[in-house]
Structures are given as C-alpha cells and as structure tokens.
C-alpha cells in the first residue's frame, strides 16, 4: 500500500486515478487550478528571493564578485508566469475527459487571471510592457549615404533640436554610425544623455544636439501578443500528452550543448565560422573544407608530425588497461568491504573517501618522487617507474580508487546475500563465490565504473603529460594540447576536428555499453533479488 499522500502531491500530479470521479464544478476546478498555479509560482518566487535577496548580498559582503545568483534569480522570475499558466492548465487536465470545453475554460480563465496580475504588476512598477524606454524621438533607416531620419516625433527632443525627416546622419560626434549601432546605443542610454549628430540636409552640413528622454512604449499589439502566447502555452500544457513532458524538459535542457556540439561539427569542416555559420575569408557563407581533418593522413599539422594511429593506440591501450585493472581491483576491494569483517575495514573506507579530497595536481611532485624511487627497484622498476606505461597506469588507477571502491561497495551492498550464503555453506570458497555468484549480479555497477574508468583513461592528460618524457607515449589529449601550444598560431578548427575524432570511439563504447545494459534488463538478471 502506498503511503497516504499530502494534498499538494495530489494536486500537482495529474494522475488518472483522481479523474475517476467526475469533477464537481467549474468553480472547484478553478480553485484547484489556482492553488496549483500559486503553489508552483510560490516555489519559484521563493527560489528567486533566496538567490537574489539572500545569497547575493551575503556573497557580496564577503567579497565574492559573482553574477550567477542575480542571473539565476531573474531566470526564476522570468519563468514564474509560464509556471503559473502551466500549473493551472495541468490541474485542469482532470476535466479533459469529462468535458473538453470546461477544461479549456478553466485553463484559460486561470491564464487570463495570471496574465492580468502580471500586467498589473508591470503597470505599477513601470516594468515589462509598461517600461519607459529611452528614445531620441525619431525613427531612422540605413541608407548608402548614412542614417536617414524617417520621421520625427512631435514634441520629442529631436524636433526641439531641429531634426527634420530626410536628414542624413553622418556621424555621432566624430564617429560614423550605422542605424543598428545607433539604436543599440539609444536602447542602452539613460535619460538626459546628450547625442551630438553631424548631419547633412540638402548638401549642407549641420551639427545638432539631442537629449535622451523616456517614453512609455505601451504597445497594445504586444499586450495582445503576450496574452495569446500565454493562452497557447496554457493550451499546450492542457493537451500535450503527459508522456511528452520528460522529453520536452530534457531536450530544452540539452539546447546549450546541442548548439555547442553543432558548432564543433561545423567548425571541423570549415575554414572559419561566425556563430553557427561556416564562412570563407571574406565573411561570406561558404568556405567548407576538409583540411582540418588532414591530421588523419599523418600530414604535418600545426608544426607537429604525429602518427595519429600510434597516438590513438596509446590512448586506447592506456584506457583499456586502466579499465580492466580498476574493475578488477575495485570489485575485489568492494566485495571485501561489503561482505567481510576484518580489522581496519571502516578505517580503509573512510580513508579512501578522504583521499579523494587530495588535489591531484599538488600530489604530483611527491608522486614524481615515488615513481623515481620505484624505478630504482630491480626488474620491476623497468615497468613501473617514471616514464613507463606501467607507472602511468598505476598512478591513474590509484586516482580512480576512491570512486571505484565506494561505487563497488555500494553495489555489493544492494545484493541479497541468500545465494551467497548458501554457496558458502555448501563449501564454495570466498573467491569462487565472488567470481561465480556475486560478480554476475553487479554488471550494472561494473559497467558504470567501467564507463568512468575508460573515460578517465581516454581523456587523461595531466598524468601522462607529467610522468612521460618525449612523444613515445603521447596520448590524444597530449596531442591536442600540443596543437594548442603557445608557440604556433593555433588552428582552432583543427583542434575541434581532433576533439571530435577523440570523441567518436568513446561515444561508440558508451552506446555499446548501454546496449549491453538494455539486454541485461530486458532478460532480467539471473537470480537477482
């Protein structure tokens, strides 16, 4: 039996079971919708207050110059009206089966109410649509000769200064301007800023000074547009199937990444880019090229001739070794920590977690000293000392330990120990139990750790770069850093190409890992609890 729920839970969700009884009346529907809308808005508002009025002053008082809290606070405030409309409409969904028009009526009423509140607030505070915008009192357009004055607002400062339609503005003080530029400046100006223009009127040059003044730019069309947008949002929230919601949220959250990676891909195939557009040397659309990928054929790239195959193979070997080794070591350790009682067990667990708090970069010199001394051990030292693949692998596995040990212990803890105990009672050794009974049950955990280890090894830059000399053991990240070195002019688009090249194998690896997981879950873990 599910634990009894609080009223808020019941209101916020649109569960099918709450619709079985026909909703009593429109009024109660509106009441419920409003409650949901107000609740959601209140949460957002509280967040905005917390960040903008509590955390920000606190941070400022201790000398942190940050911009994040203000940004986040205004983001929450900006989302507040949308959340209000959506919240009200989601509550109205319960009426959809009963009567579509009732549901629509409720959703729209709540939305109109919300929009009315928003507009009222903006009217009182002279913000948003009632904001007073700075202006000079004339409209303009860009022409060949300069910025042409199209019309002059009667009573505005431009008219007072004597500006007439048809005047061509040549320069602002002494700097030539474009219409776009001028409009941007005006939009950012404050009241009483003086603008001195050099203009021509019928072949005659004049100088005029105008002053910025504020006008209310109440635009009824914008007001109506806003209301229509709000109603559309509300209707969408009412009709979009609930199963789409997670998709929509995830995709919206992914947008920045999508833009970034789209650029990365476009950049690798073009000589230069402006925003997301590939352009040629003159700034026109075009300039597509494959030359950024020439590193694949071993061509001289950015002053470094590198055999890409060797570099990739190095990266792969290090990553694969690291994955196998850390899976083996961490699952052994995690098993012992989860299942066996021995002195020092708790100490070791606490210690590994604490060790993770050691900044890798500042342990570099001590580790360097350790590796040098390891190298002095006869026979073994040749494989494990400074400037050997073994040494690098050991250091990287060690840095992976805290994560691996704790992750594995956590997964072992979740497994029921009935099977294991019966195996032990039947006389299986600890080792055999571990290998044949337990290990197959934590495949998701092994996979999660495997993904992190492989990524760690594949992307490792600092450790290979620090503990190797020469290029014999160069990995892909080391190669990328060489390309971005300060000695040569950097071809960023080629860097992007190598970056994409490095991305592909690991992306494929991840997809296969996921497929594997899919199969496990589809068939069910054999004998798992």
């Amino acid at each position, binding site marked *: 039996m*599910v634990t009894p729920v609080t009223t808020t839970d019941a209101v916020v969700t649109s569960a099918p079971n709450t619709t079985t009884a026909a909703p009593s009346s429109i009024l109660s529907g509106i009441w419920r919708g409003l409650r949901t809308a107000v609740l959601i808005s209140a949460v957002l508002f509280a967040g905005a207050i917390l960040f903008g009025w509590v955390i920000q002053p606190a941070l400022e008082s201790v000398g942190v110059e940050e911009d994040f809290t203000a940004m986040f606070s205004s983001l929450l405030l900006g989302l507040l009206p949308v959340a209000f409309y959506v919240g009200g409409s989601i509550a109205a969904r319960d009426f959809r089966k009963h009567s579509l028009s009732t549901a629509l009526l409720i959703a729209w009423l709540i939305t109109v109410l919300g929009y009315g509140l928003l507009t009222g607030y903006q009217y009182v505070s002279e913000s948003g649509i009632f904001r007073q915008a700075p202006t000079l009192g004339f409209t303009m357009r860009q022409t060949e000769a300069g910025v042409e004055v199209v019309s002059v607002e009667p009573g505005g400062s431009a008219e007072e200064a004597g500006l007439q339609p048809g005047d061509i503005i040549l320069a602002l003080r002494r700097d030539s301007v474009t219409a776009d530029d001028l409009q941007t400046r005006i939009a950012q100006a404050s009241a009483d800023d003086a603008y001195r223009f050099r203009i021509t009127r019928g072949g005659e040059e004049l100088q005029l000074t105008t002053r910025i003044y504020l006008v209310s730019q109440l635009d009824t069309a914008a007001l109506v547009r806003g209301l229509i947008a709000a109603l559309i949002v509300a209707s969408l929230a009412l009709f979009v199937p609930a199963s789409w919601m997670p998709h929509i949220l995830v995709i919206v959250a992914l947008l920045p990444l999508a833009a970034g990676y789209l650029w*990365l891909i476009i950049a690798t195939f073009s000589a230069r880019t402006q925003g997301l557009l590939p352009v040629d040397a003159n700034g026109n659309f075009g300039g597509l090229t494959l030359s950024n990928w020439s590193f694949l054929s071993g061509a001289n790239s950015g002053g470094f001739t590198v055999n890409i195959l060797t570099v990739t193979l190095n990266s792969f070997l290090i990553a694969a070794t690291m994955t196998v080794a850390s899976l083996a070591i961490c699952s052994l350790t995690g098993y012992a920590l989860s299942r066996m009682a021995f002195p020092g067990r708790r100490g070791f667990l606490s210690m590994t977690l*604490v060790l*993770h708090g050691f*900044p890798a970069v500042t342990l570099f010199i001590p580790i360097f000293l350790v590796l040098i001394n390891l190298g002095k051990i006869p026979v073994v030292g040749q494989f494990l000392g400074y400037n050997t693949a073994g040494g690098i692998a050991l250091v990287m596995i*060690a840095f992976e330990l805290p994560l691996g040990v704790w992750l594995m212990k956590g997964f072992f803890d979740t497994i029921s120990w009935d099977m294991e105990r019966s195996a032990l009672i039947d006389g299986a050794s*600890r080792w055999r139990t571990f290998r044949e009974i337990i290990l197959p049950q934590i495949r998701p955990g092994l996979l999660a750790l495997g993904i992190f280890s492989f990524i760690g090894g594949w*992307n490792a830059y600092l450790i290979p770069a620090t503990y190797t000399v020469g290029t014999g053991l160069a990995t892909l990240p080391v190669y990328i850093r060489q390309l971005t070195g300060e000695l040569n002019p950097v071809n960023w688009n080629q860097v992007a190409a190598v970056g994409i090249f490095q991305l592909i194998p*690991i992306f494929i690896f991840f997809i296969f890992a996921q*497929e594997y997981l899919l199969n496990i879950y589809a068939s069910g873990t054999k004998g798992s609890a």
Partner: protein
Amino acid sequence: MTDRTASPAGSPDLNAPQRSRSRALRANLVAYGFMAPAILLSILFFIIPAILVVYLSMTDLATANFTSDIAQMNFVGLANYVTLFHDPFVKKIFFNTIFYVLTTLLLFNTGAALFVSLLTAHVNRRAGFIYRALWLLPRITTGSVYVLMWRRIIAEPPFGILNQFNALLGQPSVSYAAESPWTFIILVNGFIGLSFGMVIFTSAIESISKDLLNASLVDGSTLLQRVRYVILPMLRWPLLFVVTYQTLSLLTSFEEILLFTNGGPGIYQTEVWALTAYHRALSNYFGNAQWGYGSAFAVVLVLIGVTLAFIYMRVFRFQELVNDPKIEVL
C-alpha cells in the same frame, strides 16, 4: 555449520577456542588478500605522497633550488603558512571556492543530475539511452576542446553563437565573458559534473526491483508518489555518495576554470583555491614555480576536504552504512 573447505573432514572439535581463532585469522587473511592491491596502491600513491606534500609545504622548494633528494631540501618550518594567511586575496579566494562548490554541487551535480536521471528513467528506454549519451558528451570531450566550445558559445559578435541568436531576435549583443564569468564557469563545470550523478543515479534507479514499482503502480500511486516514496528512499546511498564525492571533486578541480578564465577577468574574480595552488606551484609568472608555497595551499585544501569528509560521514551517518558486513566469518 561446518566449513568443509577449511577444516579437515571428520576431525573432532576438541579445542574450539583455538580453532575459531585460527579460523578468524584465516578469514582476515582472505579479506586482506582481496584488499591487497588497493591497499598497496593507496600507500604508494596517496599515503606516502600525502606525507611528502606536508613536508614539502615546510620547505622553500622552488624551480631555482629543485632537487629530488628529500634530505637536501631547505626546511623553513611554517613560513609558507604565515605568508599564505597574510595574502590579502586569501579571503576572497576562500569564499569564491565555497560559492563555486556549493552552487555547482547543489544545482547541477546532484539537483540536475537527479532530475535528468528521473526524467530519462521515465521515458522509453531507447530514448533515455540517447539522452544520457548526449549528457555524457561534456565528460568525454577533452577539456580544452570542451572549453573551446563554450568560448565560442559566449564569444563576441560575429563569432559568438549566443550573440548570433541575440542578433536574430533583435537584441543588443552582450559580452558574456566580461559580464557573467561565474555563470558560465558554473555552467561549464555543471554540465560535466551532471553526468557523474546521472550515471550513478540511473544505475541505482534501474536496479530498483521492478516488482516494487509494479506493486506501487497497482496500488494506484502517482508519478510523484513513486518518486517520493519508492525511488528516493532507494537512492539514499547513491545520493550521499554523490554529494560527498562531488564536494571533494569540486574542491580540488580547477582545470576547466584554468582553461576558461584562468581566474579572471577581474582580480582573482574567478580564482578558486585549487587553482591558486596550481598557480603557485606550477605556473608562476616569474618563471619560478614555488613548490613549497604551492604545497602549503594544497595542504590547507586537504585539511578543508578532510574536515568536510568527516562532517559528511557524521551527518549522513556513514558509519551505519559502513557498519554491517553482510556475512561474518562462516
């Protein structure tokens, strides 16, 4: 219960106490056998270096007098720490670090990670995989390329992607790098950090028994009820782990900040403690890397990290989780 593999068959149990002691010893040996590789690695690459770094912080080791022989280093006592605490910017860097760690941790590394894994666990399985693969991209992209990408996103016109959208919407262009460096540092790191929690939370959600979820479905629970009463309680351990682990990760991470703003654009505006340690120890402007002084910064950071780790263990009652090995000696 008899331990057939261990005791000779049929031998009478004459001296029980002694036998159980030897059996306990053997069980311990088995345990240490399982633990041996991890213990060895920890000693070699954590314990010994940790002791060394404390020692280094009390020397004036620098590029000028570098030596790999410990005996030849100049011991200067606590001089480095005195210098550190008299640094006028130390307070600012300290609070920068706290701000950066807390915001990124709460909003992205745990908050958004939990949100994304709950969302992707509730869509069609294949779609969930695709989303998770996409969210993993920042982590698998090498740091310099990832940061390059973000630089292009916020660059000035005509190169910046955000400013291109601003132009399309008729908005004035913004120089994001100068006006909101922290916002983008948190985004850059948050998008990487998110995937860690996401993978762990998703694995944990996937391993919740389907019977449990089905039972709650049959009982007529809503989505939020299932999240609140079925999924979240099962996520307790992963949540605590991610919070603790990521706090320490964020405290010591600096690579993206180094590549993105390098502590700028204002004076120490986005400098965090680990970055200072790096600046002092590895990339001093005067070409004289002060290993000793940098190590002092590192030791302070370690102390903060260790304190936090212990606080977490106390608050989250890790001891309970750590306390009960499933099977005692058989």
